[in-house]
């Protein structure tokens, strides 16, 4: 655990010293701010309810296909390219501890951004009565969703030394997982195809475990397990990749 915490502390410090991370946060918060203010003024005229304005976490999860690769593209690929990965591997630390520490750091950074969006919820409590239970489910889901996308995009950071390629591939992967529901629907409509195939593909995607349930304040055990297993599986794969690379070198 000490090793994990050491890596975590180092990486988290790097994030909060990096201008890129602040630029990402600024861009997101400005975008959310414009969206929220505009919606608030419209809802005030049309007598909308507070829950209709509680959409920021869902926007954030949608944008993760852009944000997550940007946050994770340098995590391992930079170490590989600069040759520091081999040095780090000589330290008394296992590959899995190294990967977990890095992942926890980027997830913590994402958590900070997510917590900053609670400002919008606070505003809603001032102007109306939002459904707090639904908000809890929404934020829990967004947090797990973020963890899963970050873990998935980390895989590509371990695969390639090129950060741009890692970011691109990470974005494509997250987008594919985001659109799995659309693909499942199309496949299910094909003749002579077992509907279970469509269901399986849908279950692989992110939307099936967030949109219908956690975004609306319903917590299902399988949804929590999905995101946790997605994180575990992605970190497992990333660890395997780093181990193979190390063994080969």
């Amino acid at each position, binding site marked *: 655990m000490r090793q994990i915490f050491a890596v975590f502390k180092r990486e988290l410090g790097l994030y*909060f*010293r990096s*201008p890129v991370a*602040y*630029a990402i*946060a*600024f861009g997101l*918060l*400005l975008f959310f*701010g414009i969206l929220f*203010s505009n919606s*608030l003024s419209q*809802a*005030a005229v049309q007598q909308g*309810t*507070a*829950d209709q304005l509680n959409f920021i976490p869902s926007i954030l999860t949608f944008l993760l296909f852009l944000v997550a690769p940007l946050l994770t593209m340098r995590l391992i690929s930079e170490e590989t390219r600069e040759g520091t990965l081999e040095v780090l591997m000589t330290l008394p630390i296992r590959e899995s501890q190294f990967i977990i520490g890095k992942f926890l750091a980027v997830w913590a950074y994402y958590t900070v951004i997510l917590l900053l969006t609670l*400002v919008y919820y606070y*505003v809603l409590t*001032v*102007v*109306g*009565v*939002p*459904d*707090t*239970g*639904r908000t809890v*489910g929404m934020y829990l889901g967004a947090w797990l969703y973020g963890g899963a996308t970050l873990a998935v995009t980390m895989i590509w950071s371990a695969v390639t030394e090129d950060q741009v390629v890692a970011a691109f591939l990470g974005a494509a992967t997250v987008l594919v997982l985001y659109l799995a*529901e659309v693909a*499942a*629907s199309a496949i*299910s*409509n094909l003749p*002579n*195809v*077992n*509907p*279970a*195939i*469509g269901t399986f593909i*849908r279950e692989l995607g992110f939307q*099936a475990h967030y949109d*219908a*349930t956690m975004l*609306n*304040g*319903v917590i*299902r*055990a*399988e949804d929590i*397990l*999905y995101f946790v*297993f997605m994180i*575990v*599986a992605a970190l*497992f794969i990333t660890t*395997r990749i780093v181990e*193979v690379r190390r*063994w080969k070198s």
Partner: protein
Amino acid sequence: MTTPNPNLNEQEPFIPPFYMLILAGIGLLIAVVVALTQATFSVVGWGGLGLAVLSVIVWGFMAPQQVKSMLTGRTARYGGTTVLITALFLIALIAVYSFVKGRSLRLDLTQRDTFSLTEDTRKAIAGLAVEPNVPNIRILAFYETADASQRDQASILFDDYAKTSQNKISYEFVDPVRSPGLAQAYKIQSTSSSSISRFAVAPLDAEGNPIPDKAQTVSFLSQEDLTNAIMRVAASGDFRAYFLSVGDTLKLTDTGGSGMSDVNSVLKDTFNWKTEEVNMVDLTAPQSSIQLNDPAADGEVLVVAGGTTPLSDAQAKFITDYLDKGGKLVIYAAPLNADGTPTLATADNLSSYLYSNFGVRFANDVVLDQQQAVNGIPFFVAASNMDTFSSITRDVAGNANVFAIFNTSRSIELAPTTPANVTITQLVQSSGTSYAKTDPAVLQATEISQTDAAETDAKGPFVLAASAENSQTGAMVVLFGSVDVPTNQYTLLSQQGVANRTISLTSLFWTTKFEDFFTQIPQLAAQQRPQDAPIVVAPEVGRNVNFLTLILLPFGVLAIGIAVWWNSREKRAS
């Protein structure tokens, strides 16, 4: 020199172990091909999967050392078997996920109770669960494949219904595109964006199949609407129809053309009515089990179908007394007697009562029509002129392809002055080309020419069916000029556009206010929650919000970022 004995344990197996892996691969390939190309995972698919699993197990027994090194050796961590180990790990995760998914563990955090039952609903549904007379109920939810997310949401609420009702309420998802017949049976349109109703709540029959005719449809996933539909379906009500059997009146259970078994079976099987053929002794005996005007009944009607001989005065008085106390009567008139004597419906003891109290009575005639008649036979009048407002005829009125057959029908006379508190509705009329003859000899005619209209014949249109209601006593009567209206020979023609079955049933429903019964069932009203209140944004609050979300938050973070960058720049410089 001795030849060392071969160590039996080191003998090569008869079949190389890796053949088993090849066999497992083939089995798995078969299973995947079947899964991808067939609508169901058939025996072939299961066979392939079974072959794969068995082959792997046999390989494990044949080469245990290979298995051990594959799972724990360097190749497992860094070599070619890494992919296999990773795949097995993922399969294990999927297996655990599938197991947990099957447990349906969920928690509704919403304060609106959007996906779980409110207290009121819970009480109503729990009450149904312990009521033995309530049938099992099924909620059919029609969702296409593109609506999978909405289906997930709905299943959460439905699970709560099932659990609270102790599984008396079950649910089923139906794809209207894959099952168009089922969607049509419940009047569900197929496209998800233009559905007029998406849910159908239906009771189950003895075999556990939902009954479409008794289903209630609901448009949106609203807990109140669904619960109200469940309550309506569950409320069977106590509705009774007594069919008087006197002389040669129609027989309720007669399955022949002149019987009424079709109407009887629809009332009993589809609408859960109690029907009974009774005679005057049953009705008038002091210790009779049949009590007319029973306050315990939700609705009750006496039906007199035909009868060529009049009732006795005492029998007629029994019926008139029943009507005086708010009774309901549907009467079908037998045609003219050959000898000109009155029939049950036209005998003075009943006819004059109906005329003076309700303003209606049967005329002593027979209506013919040579132009609007079935098969050109003038006696078989095809009447399509029906009242569009009365609930008895509005479902079949105004449709040129729908008509009712009034065979050898009398016309109905209306009093020039309607009695006080009475409303008369002319339900069905013959066409303007019809005419009425009063000579019973016309019924013995053997040629069409013998039925031609004469100068002395009254000319149509004639009222062939009428209803009358006394708003003061609550008494209601429906008169049909032809005794053949409710008979099987015509009610079984409903698919050909013949309205006889419909008006036979709806006349009973109207007299008993059967359809109004459902509107009296206590309905759950949508609860108002604090979260439903619209937002209120005062101008100053609006300005503060804009400042916070557009300036302070994003540019505050930017400022911190710039400060951090400046500090690190200075540190690098120093």
